[in-house]
């Protein structure tokens, strides 16, 4: 069978989430990639080099400068013929347009898969990861969003796919992009970082996140936060790790001043090594931590920064 992966990219290069999705798609058979963007030749060339990819479809149009679901979904529907499965990473972009594709094709969508069991059977978390369901789809096409942390990245080199331009479709003109406020950071992205240090309500204020930043600088880590810290206004919403924020699985996750609410654990419990620093020894975070340190974070963080120097 042949799958179409809708790429996550910035027109110049592919996001890692695309490479995770290619790995999931490759378990189903042949893989083609769609790059819908504006001035996206760079991303298309990168996609052609990904190991295991047969063909790269390119839809280059100013309409795809911002991937509005109303514009992207009909394009994917038009290309759906001949594909047995269509996959996209379960990022906010993929989650936004894929169900629109599914409904237009009159097919069910399988959200957030964590494993491919067979051509029609997949595992996915339900109840915020408190249960894992094995589901089987009877639809002719499988429309899938992929939890990227559950699949390793495909090799970005070694492939030599053909690149083919596809006709773009007319913008239905019912929606438009107004503005974006993107967090600017020199640090790695949360979802692809090898090391993450997250702060919770225990940080006490946004200013105190400077302590977390100092340690992150030493480790080359990304910075995350619990929902409590985001709701308290310490840091922007896109820092949030958890069921309703980002799902992460780094090599090392350091939780500082985070009690370990179930919603937070759902977002980070697949990390390879978890460290918890909390002054409350009863905090549930210690039950999932490989290394726990019962300490006042205002002393522990500066010490940690010093130890790492």
């Amino acid at each position, binding site marked *: 069978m042949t799958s179409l992966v809708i790429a996550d990219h910035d027109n110049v290069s592919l996001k890692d989430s695309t490479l995770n999705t290619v790995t999931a798609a490759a378990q189903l058979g042949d893989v083609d990639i769609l790059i819908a963007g504006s001035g996206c030749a760079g991303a298309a060339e990168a996609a052609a080099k990904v190991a295991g990819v047969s063909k790269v479809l390119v839809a280059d149009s100013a309409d795809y400068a911002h991937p509005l679901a*109303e514009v992207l979904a009909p394009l994917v529907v038009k290309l759906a013929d001949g594909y047995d499965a269509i996959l996209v990473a379960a990022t906010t972009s993929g989650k936004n347009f894929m*169900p*629109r*594709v599914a409904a237009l094709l009159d097919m069910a969508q399988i959200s957030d898969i964590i494993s491919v069991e067979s051509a029609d059977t997949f595992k996915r978390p339900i109840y*915020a990861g408190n249960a894992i369901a094995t589901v089987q789809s009877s639809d002719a096409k499988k429309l899938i969003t992929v939890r990227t942390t559950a699949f390793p990245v495909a090799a970005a080199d070694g492939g030599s796919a053909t690149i083919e331009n596809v006709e773009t479709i007319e913008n239905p003109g019912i929606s438009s992009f107004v503005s974006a406020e993107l967090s600017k950071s020199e640090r790695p992205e949360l979802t692809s970082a090898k*090391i993450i240090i997250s702060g919770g309500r225990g940080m006490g204020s946004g200013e105190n996140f400077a302590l977390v930043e100092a340690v992150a600088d030493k480790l080359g880590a990304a910075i995350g936060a619990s929902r409590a810290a985001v709701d308290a206004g310490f840091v922007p*919403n896109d820092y949030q790790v958890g069921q309703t924020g980002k799902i992460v699985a780094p090599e090392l996750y350091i939780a500082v001043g985070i009690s370990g609410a179930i919603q937070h654990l759902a977002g980070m419990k697949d990390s390879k*090594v978890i460290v918890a620093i909390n002054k409350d020894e009863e905090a549930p975070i*210690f039950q999932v931590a490989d290394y726990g340190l019962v300490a006042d974070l205002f002393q522990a963080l500066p010490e940690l920064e010093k130890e790492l120097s």
Partner: protein
Amino acid sequence: MKILVPVKRVIDYNVKVRVKADNTGVELANVKMSMNPFDEIAVEEALRIREAGNAEEVLVVSIGPAQAQETLRTALAMGADRAILVKTDEAVEPLAIAKILKAIVDEENPGLVLLGKQAIDNDCNQTGQMLAALLGWPQGTFASEVVLGDGSVNVTREIDGGLETVKLNLPAVVSADLRLNEPRYASLPNIMKAKRKPLDTKEPSDYGVDTARRVTTLKVEEPSKREAGVIVETVEELVTKLRDEAGVI
């Protein structure tokens, strides 16, 4: 303008979910059920739009078992005007839900559909987008701010890198994220009043929708558990272990 708010009855978000011993699902017997938290936010937003004078009526709809009536009464007690229960004992998939909602939209002609971005039971995050597709309407998913304009709505969306604002022609579908608002509690007088508000009961067949499942759940299991590790005494010991034992720094 009329606003349609679909709501779902789900396991209360404070309840510890337990997988059934026979792996057919999770334990729902004698478990507290509530309105899906994201849907509660959608109801609140609809009420605020009506209270600001930008809508006349808030209609709430639930597709579920007879007990989903309680969920609708909660929404009515918060301040919604009228309710429709589409009664079914089956677990209906998002696509079929979207088809039933489309039929209700065709009858009721709302100017805006507001709903939660996902239900906290199956975590699908599909219904709003599917409904928008079937109606040919624009969608503003994961909304953290909704500003009505003349014939359009500006929706600020929570996206991976931060926030994005889109302008949608009305009618439109908007799905609520956590930070859109903080829902009100229903007061006792309003809970009493809600009992007399109109609630129609229908069935999926009234809307000509086939609810046969396309995705079958074969098995539901506990996720693999993490074991608690060791407690270290000092920062120095922590760094040593991370370096030498875990090899992650």
